[in-house]
């Protein structure tokens, strides 16, 4: 039942641009939403499943984005190896940052992640020789056509890149699912519920936190690489503090600790401001009000709210 629904959703997502052709703007929004889902999956593993808030996660996405941009632009690497290397590098940076920072507790850790994100975004803006400074690195080439047997799939078109983004997003979702179902994922859940208890039951808390922090930074890096190659530019504004805070909001609004939370959160975050376009000037004001209402009335995110309503319905 669940598998069928998932398959249906994937098929719908893949065929959407074919079913509604001639909608370049909608296609662009849909691709951007996908680009937002991937880093949110990374943060969901860290925050939703392990209970660690990171307020600087788009900094890691930036490491992946800039690395992939440099590899594709300067070294002429193809898309997929560049994305993979960006993710690996972001994961490595996450590992290095995590070793000292994960020893800090609760609120101290949160503020340090904020500081790390700020430091990374300062570097993106100011290391002109490497990152192109405030202008970033423009002119990232589009992915090359994919040849499977005799079929040649063009990925450079808007629809082609939408499929690329969809494939990367599905890969990240699959990884999230595999991690959550694994014994490693159970250990993470134990840490979230009670760290002391988890340690008493033989979980190496620090090692698990470090592993999930690096993994989550790596997934964020893949998201950054995907976004940079979609926008064809790696720019500091994509990876600054505001972007990091928005990412946290995406995860929380969707429903932290739900597999589909990042998907729903990202859709809400891109679609809602668009839907509010009618309100023109007051658009962001209304969006802010909606966020406050969500915080007050959906304490476990939209999916949490949904499950609660379903349960109440089933009970009555």
């Amino acid at each position: 039942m669940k598998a069928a629904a998932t398959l249906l959703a994937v098929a719908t997502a893949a065929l959407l641009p074919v079913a509604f052709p001639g909608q370049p703007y909608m296609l662009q929004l849909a691709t951007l939403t996908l680009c937002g889902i991937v880093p949110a999956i990374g943060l969901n593993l860290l925050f939703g499943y392990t209970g660690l808030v990171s307020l600087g996660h788009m900094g890691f996405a930036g490491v992946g984005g800039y690395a992939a941009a440099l590899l594709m632009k300067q070294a002429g690497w193809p898309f997929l190896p560049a994305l993979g290397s960006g993710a690996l590098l972001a994961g490595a940076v996450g590992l290095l940052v995590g070793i000292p920072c994960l020893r800090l507790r609760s609120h101290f850790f949160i503020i340090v992640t904020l500081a790390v994100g700020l430091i990374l975004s300062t570097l993106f803006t100011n290391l002109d020789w490497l990152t192109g400074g405030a202008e970033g690195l423009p002119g990232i080439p589009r992915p090359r056509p994919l040849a499977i047997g005799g079929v040649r799939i063009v990925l450079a078109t808007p629809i082609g890149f939408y499929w690329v983004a969809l494939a990367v997003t599905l890969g990240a979702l699959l990884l999230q699912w595999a991690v959550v179902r694994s014994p490693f994922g159970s250990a993470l859940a134990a840490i979230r519920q009670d760290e002391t208890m988890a340690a008493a039951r033989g979980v190496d808390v620090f090692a698990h936190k470090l592993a999930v922090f690096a993994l989550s930074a790596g997934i964020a890096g893949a998201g950054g690489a995907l976004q940079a190659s979609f926008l064809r530019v790696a720019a500091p504004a994509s990876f600054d503090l505001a972007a990091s805070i928005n990412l946290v909001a995406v995860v929380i609004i969707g429903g932290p600790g739900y597999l589909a939370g990042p998907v729903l959160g990202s859709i809400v975050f891109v679609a809602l401001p668009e839907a509010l376009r009618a309100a023109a000037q007051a658009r962001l004001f209304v969006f802010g009000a909606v966020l406050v209402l969500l915080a007050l009335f959906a304490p476990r995110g939209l999916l949490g709210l949904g499950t609660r309503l379903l349960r109440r319905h089933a009970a009555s």
Partner: protein
Amino acid sequence: MAFPAMAFPAMAVIAQAVNGIMMGAVYALFAVGMVLVFGVMRVLNFAHGAVFMAGGYLCWFAMAHVSPIYPVALLFSTAGGAAIGLVLERLVFRRLRENLSMQIVASLGLILMAQNGVLLLFGADALQIEAPSLRRVLRLGELGFTVQHLVILAAVAVAVASLHVFLSRSRLGIAMRAASQDIQAARVVGIAPDRVFAITFALSGALAALGGALLGPLFLVFPGMGDLPLLKGLTAIVLGGMGSVWGAVLGGLAIGLLEAEATLFAPTDYRDLVVFAALIATLLLRPRGLFGTAIRGEP
């Protein structure tokens, strides 16, 4: 190291120290308001910067439409900030006391509402508070600073001193400290938590708005003017150990000094990087901040 002595002329160091202590005083004021709310309610109000910004606009409004006397405008902003604090506590944060993640989302929503709200009301252009007497430059030998530098230092000193007296002498202040130590025990001895929360938020809002009204005449008043103080204020309370008013004050002053002196040895663009790197380095050496103490029950 080949640092020529000339690279750090004493006068430049002192001049930056004056600037740094002034900005540090503003950060301290900001951080004290945040740490009060955190201490009493365990709420991290990221929208504190929006109240700071509102204070700047209230001050501009008061100077332009209520009374051109700056101290009156300061009082007006402070009272306005207290009112905003009361509303925020009652409508939003009282219900989010146990939920850190939703505190973040609500704060983000409030920031969006505040920043876009003032955009709609006052337009996108930065506003200037017309107070030439505050911008007059005083000379002390080679040092030059504005009257507003002194006003800021004096106002912050008065505010922090009154807060200290309030917290240590008055019944309400003692009730606040009791609530911050153990809310259940406070309830047992007859302290009404909701009343304490409301007063805490009002105080915090008043301090934030006062900060905005103090910084406004020196720089400009614009929607994002609370963003940097928020980051520096957060850094200050973490440096100070997230528990004490004096820790937050010292943390704020230290950050102000550090970022001002940093411009002497690093490009201005890296000023914030120096501050945040110092924060991380400090926490690595002292994981609970400079003045934090271990909490019973935490490993």
